[in-house]
Structures are given as structure tokens and as C-alpha cells.
């Protein structure tokens, strides 16, 4: 086909053209990975409106425990109050806008602004204003009217989500039937999950959507991108094509894929019984086909991976990571990568599992290293004026695959993971959120 570098007037027009091209032919315009104007609209239309994962409950177990987290540029203190309730407070003093909390984590009953000393309880309530009566008079400042801004916070199975939009639907409604699939990750033990340490954080020059797009359905890249990790024998799989014949499932804001012939993916054996007891017959039907739910993304930028690794002196061990692709700009993202483990697994198993994660994921992980290289490279090229008009091929599976008719879970599933149904689902959802004519 021929490509013309036609001038595109503005982001709305570009988005509309990109959506049309995508819905008609599954061609994606590469400028979506680099355009600063589109990025500005993403912050307005997605980041200010969708549910965003910020922390796991186990990161703040005691009253007063807090972590500071972000939704794009918006800073939030996620804190457990003295009554045990968890709140999300906007990290901005109501007087001059200073950050009232400048650590990343800790324990505090109060947050005190360094600028003028306004002091807030960890519920957000303003309880101290220096020289209150002298400077405002007895009637001048009603402290009750100036708390830290509270942002909506709701949870699912220990995952804490926030939403900046007071009008947004409740989290459970947003997740819908996606909870069926999240339960594979979150209900492996009756004792629940715990985060080890803090999330790994690192910044590099790539567009956030590349992480979301990869984890939602790009099983195909494992065969080539990750061949080196398979070759050196740290994955308990026969070859780098291990993802090819696992199904792919899609429902609501979620999609992901499975590895075939990998029963329980090296989960600690004593947890298998608990996992089955916590899940439903429909889950059992999937597990009984020796399928293991591996990668997925919850729109817009939360991804999951449950995978096995090889460590010396022990049978293969599973590890579980969840990650946020935090957008910092059209060409910059910060990865937040959490490692979680079942609380009731034995300590030595947890240690081996964590080391398997460190070897494969996080800043130094051999799998993650090659992913970040790819995504940086794509982002760099996508800045070109011609690149804005070049369609990328998202058609895999479109012409020959039929959905499974006997898939036990909700939504739709396809027989193989080497297909781009899940990625097409991500982009279809993206355009629904972004395009004026769909809103």
C-alpha cells in the first residue's frame, strides 16, 4: 500500500482518523505512541476518569502506615487511619499547595505542611493552623471546610484503586466480570497476598501504552524477544514458543492469555488445594485443562504476570508481579513493579520465588530488560512525521480464528495466544475513552 504524509490538523482529527482505520482494518497509526497533544488528552480522558491501582493493602498494615502514589501527575497519600479505614488524600496543602508528605512511605498520625505549618490528621481533617485566631479571626477560617482533598478509593481482594472522577461508576461495576479472571491471581491462598519490599520503580523513554499493549496479549513476542532467557535455561518451558497454544480471554476492561501444559505453573504445591477451594467450578474447568493464566492488562495501565522460574536446588517456583505503566509524558514512562506472594507459603519457597522474579522481572530482570529496549525504540521512531501516518499491523488472527464455543469463563476466548484479539480489545477500548464521538 502507499502511504502519504498528509498533514493532520489536530489531535481530535488524528484520533478520529486513527480510530476509523483501526476499527475498519486493524491498522494502528504509530503517532499514538508519541504525540504530545494526544498525551494531554489521555490525561484528561483516561487518567482523570478511570480506576487506577495504587497499592496493595499489605503495604500499609498498621494504623498510620502510608505510601505516596501517583495517578499520572496527581500525587496521593494512601493511608490507613487510626480506625483502620484506608483513605486516598491528595498530597497538597489547601493553603499554598505544598506537598504535606515528602517521604515515599512511613507511619504518621498527622501530616504537617512545612511551609506555614498547617496540620492535618491522617484522615485529611485540618486540625492545626498556626496563629489561627490572630490571623483569620474567630470566624474567618472554618477548619472543617479545608481538609486535604479525599479521592475515591475502593478495593478488590486487597488491591486498592483510586478514581479522580466523582462521577465514575463504582470499582466493582467497572471491573464487572473481569473479577473472574483477577481471582486466578488473587485467590491462590486463603491467607491472601503480601507485597515484598516496595515496588521497583524506574524511568525510561517509552510511551506507557506499549507496556499495557504488550502485557494484554503479546504472547507472540516471547518467541523472539525473550529467546535468550529461555536459551540459558531459567524458564521451566520446553522452548521459547511456550505461549503459542494457550487461549486468550477478553472481558470488559480486561484481557489476558494462558500458557498450555503448565498445570499450576510451579505454584507451591500446598496452595493448590486452597486455590481450588477459593475458586469456582468454571475456574476448575480451565485449570483442569492444564492452562495457567499468565499475562494480562486491566485498562488502562495495570498489568499482571504469574509465571514460573528455575532456581538451583529447588523445583521450579512461581512468582507473581503486578505493574503500573505510569505515564510521565508522551515519550516517558515510569514502571512500578510489585512482587507479591501468598502469605502462607513457606519462607524458603518465598525466597526462591522472589529471586526468580528478580532474575526475570523488575529493573534487572532478563525478560524485562529486552522489553524496555523494544518499547524505547518504538517510541523514538514514532516521533517521526512520516511515522505518524504509518499504519502498524494489528490483524493477527482476524482472518482465520473463531472464538471458542466451550470456554468456561465469562467474555470471549480464542484458541491460541499467538493472536492479537486482546491487543485489539485494548485499542478499541482506548478509542472509546479517547474519541469525542464515542463519549
Amino acid at each position, binding site marked *: 500500500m502507499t502511504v502519504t504524509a498528509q498533514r493532520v490538523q489536530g489531535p481530535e482529527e488524528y484520533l478520529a482518523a486513527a480510530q476509523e482505520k483501526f476499527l475498519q482494518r486493524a491498522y494502528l497509526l504509530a503517532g499514538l505512541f508519541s504525540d504530545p497533544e494526544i498525551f494531554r488528552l489521555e490525561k484528561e480522558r483516561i487518567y482523570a476518569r478511570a480506576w487506577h491501582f495504587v497499592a496493595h493493602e499489605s503495604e500499609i498494615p498498621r494504623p498510620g502506615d502510608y505510601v505516596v502514589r501517583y495517578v499520572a501527575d496527581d500525587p496521593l497519600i494512601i493511608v490507613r487511619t487510626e480506625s483502620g479505614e484506608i483513605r486516598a488524600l491528595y498530597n497538597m496543602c489547601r493553603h499554598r499547595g505544598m506537598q504535606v508528605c515528602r517521604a*515515599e*512511605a512511613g507511619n504518621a498520625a498527622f501530616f504537617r505542611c512545612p511551609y506555614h505549618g498547617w496540620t492535618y490528621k491522617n484522615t485529611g481533617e485540618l486540625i492545626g493552623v498556626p496563629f489561627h485566631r490572630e490571623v483569620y479571626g474567630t470566624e474567618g477560617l472554618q477548619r472543617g471546610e479545608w481538609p486535604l482533598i479525599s479521592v475515591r478509593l475502593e478495593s478488590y481482594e486487597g488491591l486498592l484503586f483510586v478514581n479522580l472522577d466523582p462521577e465514575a461508576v463504582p470499582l466493582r461495576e467497572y471491573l464487572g466480570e473481569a473479577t473472574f479472571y483477577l481471582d486466578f491471581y488473587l485467590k491462590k491462598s486463603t491467607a491472601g497476598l503480601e507485597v515484598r*519490599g516496595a515496588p521497583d*520503580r*524506574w*524511568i525510561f523513554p517509552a510511551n506507557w501504552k506499549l507496556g499495557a499493549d504488550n502485557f494484554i496479549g503479546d504472547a507472540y513476542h516471547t518467541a523472539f524477544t525473550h529467546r535468550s532467557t529461555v*536459551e540459558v535455561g531459567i524458564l521451566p518451558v520446553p522452548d521459547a514458543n511456550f505461549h503459542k497454544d494457550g487461549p486468550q480471554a477478553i472481558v470488559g476492561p480486561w484481557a489476558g492469555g494462558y500458557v498450555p501444559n503448565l498445570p499450576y505453573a510451579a505454584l507451591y504445591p500446598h496452595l493448590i488445594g486452597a486455590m481450588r477451594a477459593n475458586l469456582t467450578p468454571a475456574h476448575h474447568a480451565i485449570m483442569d485443562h492444564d492452562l495457567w493464566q499468565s499475562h494480562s492488562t486491566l485498562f488502562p495501565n495495570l498489568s499482571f504476570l504469574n509465571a514460573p522460574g528455575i532456581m538451583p536446588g529447588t523445583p521450579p517456583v512461581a512468582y507473581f508481579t503486578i505493574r503500573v505503566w505510569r505515564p510521565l509524558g508522551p515519550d516517558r514512562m515510569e514502571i512500578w513493579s510489585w512482587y507479591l506472594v501468598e502469605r502462607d507459603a513457606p519462607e524458603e519457597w518465598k525466597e526462591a520465588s522472589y529471586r526468580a522474579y528478580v532474575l526475570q522481572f523488575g529493573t534487572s530482570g532478563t525478560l524485562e530488560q529486552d522489553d524496555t529496549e523494544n518499547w524505547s525504540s518504538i517510541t*523514538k521512531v514514532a516521533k517521526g512525521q512520516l511515522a505518524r501516518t504509518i499504519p502498524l499491523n494489528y490483524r493477527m488472527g482476524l482472518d482465520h480464528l473463531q472464538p471458542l464455543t466451550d470456554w468456561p469463563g465469562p467474555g470471549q476466548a480464542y484458541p491460541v495466544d499467538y493472536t492479537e484479539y486482546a491487543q485489539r480489545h485494548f485499542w478499541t477500548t482506548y478509542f472509546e475513552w479517547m474519541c469525542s464521538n464515542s463519549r
Partner: protein
Amino acid sequence: MTAVTEPIHREIEAFLYREAELLDARQYHDWLALLSEDVQYELPQRVTRERSQGEGILDGTGHFLENQWSLRKRIERLATEYAWAEDPPSRTRHFVTNIRVSPGEQQDEFLVRSNVLVYRTRGDDPTYDILSAERYDVLRRVEGSLRLARRRVLLDHSIVLTRNLAIFL
């Protein structure tokens, strides 16, 4: 305890410079040969805490949490034809300074602290990454030669400012 004499101090300095040279030249197998069989190589997570709450180093966590086996696996991987993160390779320069040596707890062991600044560029990208850290090493004399038995790298960042740690510090 083995006293730290002037010749030993110079020998340890030379060891650290040699090691940095091997890393910058990507002679990883030669670098691995400088590590003891029981080496522990760690780069813990760090988070910002209030001053009264310490340095924010999270014990038991790691951007690296390695032993001889896992370091060897990383190095074998970099040598394959498919290690895209480092092919084409980064250009790195390790600047090692402020070397302080004290006797170790065991005979023939030394506690060595050093500061390291690593400069990294890739491709024709005009930007560069800089990583700054203090290293707490244990060097051990094995059959006459020094070996790195333990390294704990304390990064001066809470966010890692490079696309990946496909390099060593």
C-alpha cells in the same frame, strides 16, 4: 583479622580498577572469575523516608539479589544472539573513588567501601544515564588472589534512572 598495610590498600585499589575495566569492556566471564564461589551481589531497594526513619534501604529486597549461579546465567544470556537489551551494547564508564579499606571479620578478608559513578549511553541517543552509588564490599584472599565475596550496592536514587539494569555496578 588481617591488618590493612599500604601494599594491601594499593592491591585492593588495583583490584577495583581492574574489575571496573572488565565491566566497561564487557569481559563478563573474566569479571565473574574475580568473584568468590559463594559471592553475594545485592542492590537493595531504597525508598525516601523521613530523616528520623533511617536511610530507607529495604533489607531482603533487590534490584539485584544474586549469587554466582544467577550472575552466570545473566552473563550467559548477554552472550547469546538474542540479548537485545545490550545489542548493540551500551557504552559504560565506571568511575570508582573514595576507596576505604578496613580489616574484615575473618582472616584474609577486608571490608572495602567505594563510591561509584556509572555513565551509560546507547546508540545515537544524545542523552545519557548516570547511576551513583556507594558499594560495601567484602574482599577475600583465596589462594593468594583477591576475590569479591560480597557486594552491597546502595544506590543514591529511589527511582532507577536507566531503562534497565542490564549492566553491573
